[in-house]
């Protein structure tokens, strides 16, 4: 990620609101996620018990992260695999490229991985002369479009069918596909045919991990397409990328989290495929595949010891995105980073620095739906508010805004002065009102661009009430 991509959220949100295909795509996606999750959660016995258990699993793991990581590593080694540790994105990229080179890789198949996006792996692989092919259909579509994902579980959510068809025609011509496409089935079939070939030719398969299991040294992925499994199974080398926070102690713990993950994400009780990979896999040719895990810190150890530790419980289900009225109106690209929506507005500033993402913590009306639907009980609005506080204290908040906020607080702690100013101001505004609304006023520019401002009624309730009481008492 380049440093400045988080900037200009407002501008990008503006462009997104004006982007008709994007708005059509977002509208189409909108209610489906919400309704399906609602149904799945309603049908789940013990949702709240599972949710509270899930939180305690992650908290327990975070309390003992080094111990469980050591156990995990020992188990991977015992099963014949190797573990590599990366402090940051750059180290992770180098490790992966080095592993790919040692495997003699010309072509790399990739399963969907948000940590892969986070460390900018595809560009690095290509710069190192390797072909990196995303195999999740959504990821493949945005790879063709040369765009980052706009949703953490539905990366091409922002694309319409027409846009996808146009891209396929442009890019698949060289593979000999020229027939016109129309239906979703035709699109999926064409991608299947092209990507099947890529799976078979790939020298290395790279997947992410939804969970890592300390007891067994397993990595877990959930998919609906089966692309992650083909990526893990077919190439002679399998590399798993995972950030440290993916760890859980046991398969039972993973099971508890799985009960929440798919329901929160897509409203499924379970995805079509849930796979546990442990060590090298036996291959048809009688050899075993190589199995590597790259464990990536990239700020997690810093977050662990700070005010934002709650964020490390995130299992990347995307429910907070689907229920966020800001996200569902502007889409993921406006956020500029790898992670959009409420979880991205917390994680972006933590990963890239608060000064690099000044608008994100503020891009929320604090409606609270994200926290309500979060299966891991992450208090997202509280974390956003804390980030706003950090911005204020670190003077990242613009000076004018800081002064205005301070002035408001100060004025309100001086009730006499406050009343002396508010009374005449409201009286004046009330007189300015026409037909119940205020004329355009310089201080109300942003509000009045798309809305009227109702004129004050005039007077003050508190003052008049007490004046009247005072009089009654004297009489």
């Amino acid at each position, binding site marked *: 990620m380049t440093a400045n991509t988080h900037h200009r959220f407002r501008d990008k949100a503006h462009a997104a609101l004006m982007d008709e295909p994007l708005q059509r795509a977002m509208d189409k996606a909108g209610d489906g996620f919400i309704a399906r999750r609602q149904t799945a959660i309603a049908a789940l016995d013990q949702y709240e018990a599972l949710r509270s258990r899930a939180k305690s699993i992650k908290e327990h793991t975070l309390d003992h992260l080094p111990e469980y*990581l050591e156990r995990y590593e020992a188990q991977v080694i015992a099963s014949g695999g190797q573990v590599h540790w990366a402090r940051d994105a750059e180290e992770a990229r180098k490790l992966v490229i080095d592993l790919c080179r040692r495997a003699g890789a010309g072509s790399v198949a990739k399963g969907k991985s948000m940590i892969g996006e986070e460390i900018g792996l595809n560009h690095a692989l290509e710069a190192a002369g390797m072909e990196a092919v995303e195999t999740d259909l959504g990821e493949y579509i945005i790879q063709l479009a040369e765009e980052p994902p706009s949703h953490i579980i539905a990366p091409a959510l922002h694309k319409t069918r027409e846009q996808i068809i146009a891209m396929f025609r442009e890019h698949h011509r060289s593979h000999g596909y020229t027939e016109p496409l129309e239906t979703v089935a035709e699109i999926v079939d064409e991608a299947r045919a092209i990507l099947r070939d890529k799976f078979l030719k790939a020298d290395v398969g790279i997947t992410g991990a939804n969970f890592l299991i300390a007891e067994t040294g397993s990595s877990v992925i959930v998919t609906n397409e089966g692309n992650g499994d083909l990526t893990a199974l077919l190439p002679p080398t399998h590399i798993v990328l995972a950030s440290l926070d993916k760890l859980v102690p046991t398969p039972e713990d993973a099971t508890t989290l799985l009960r929440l993950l798919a329901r929160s994400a897509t409203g499924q009780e379970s995805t079509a495929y849930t796979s546990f990979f442990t060590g090298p896999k036996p291959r048809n040719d009688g050899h075993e595949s190589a199995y590597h895990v790259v464990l990536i810190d990239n700020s997690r150890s810093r977050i662990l010891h700070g005010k934002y530790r709650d964020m490390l419980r995130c299992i990347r289900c995307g429910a907070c995105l689907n229920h966020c009225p800001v996200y569902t109106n502007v889409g993921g690209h406006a956020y500029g980073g790898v992670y959009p929506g409420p979880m991205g507005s917390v994680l972006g500033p933590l990963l890239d620095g608060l000064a690099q993402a000044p608008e994100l913590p503020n891009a929320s009306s604090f409606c609270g739906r994200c926290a309500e639907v979060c299966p891991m009980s992450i208090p997202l609005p509280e974390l956003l508010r804390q980030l706003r506080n950090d911005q204020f204290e670190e003077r990242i908040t613009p000076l004018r805004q800081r002064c205005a906020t301070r002035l408001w607080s100060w004025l309100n702690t001086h009730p006499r002065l406050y009343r002396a100013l508010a009374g005449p101001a409201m009286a004046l505004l009330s007189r300015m009102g026409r037909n119940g609304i205020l004329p355009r006023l310089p201080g109300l520019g942003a509000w009045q661009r798309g809305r009227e401002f109702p004129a004050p009624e005039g007077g003050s309730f508190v003052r008049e009430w007490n004046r009247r009481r005072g009089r009654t008492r004297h009489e």
Partner: protein
Amino acid sequence: MSEARREILTRLRGESGTNKAGVRDGAWSSSAGPRPRLDGSALEVFVDKLRQNSASVVRVDSEAAIIKAIGNFLRVEGQGQGQGQGLVVMPHPRLRELNWPNDLEIQCRAPRASDLNVLSLAAFGIAETGSLVLLSGTETPSEANFLPENFLCLVDRANLIEHMEEVWQHLRQQGDFPACVNLISGPSRTADVEQTIQLGAHGPRRLLVVIDEGSKNE
């Protein structure tokens, strides 16, 4: 090991240092969480959930019925372009030793990318989610679960379990975690184009589950 490893672990330990108290070491299975209650018997729920997820499910009570169910499925779904209605059977004795008829073209070998119809054997069926549990090994290689257009899978009723936790208990007792444990709850699907569900994204387009309720032997 590496400097990165040392540094990361040091960072994670912070000021508190090692904190072994309460680490679930050796008492792994005590970590089971709440298990959702099933609305019905394991068999009923298993079948319902699989059907909800677009799988075809056939319940049989004899070897002959297994063969018949597979034959019926192949006649309807098992013919690809330029390919016969052949079936590639994974080399597990339970499958190999079925009394395959001569009019069914059977090959018993490892799967290939071009295979149309592949039959494998599930170690368990999880009722809670309607999931087949396939364990990797030379007799049931994992590629079989993902490569073909049509994936056929036999599961014995005796191996139906209510919840996923029972798989972990079983594997723990057995003392060996296979390289791949695949839970399969339906055919491959995607909703990446306009959130429209389309079956057969990368893996099988169709899933036939044959539940053997009677002929289990061995």
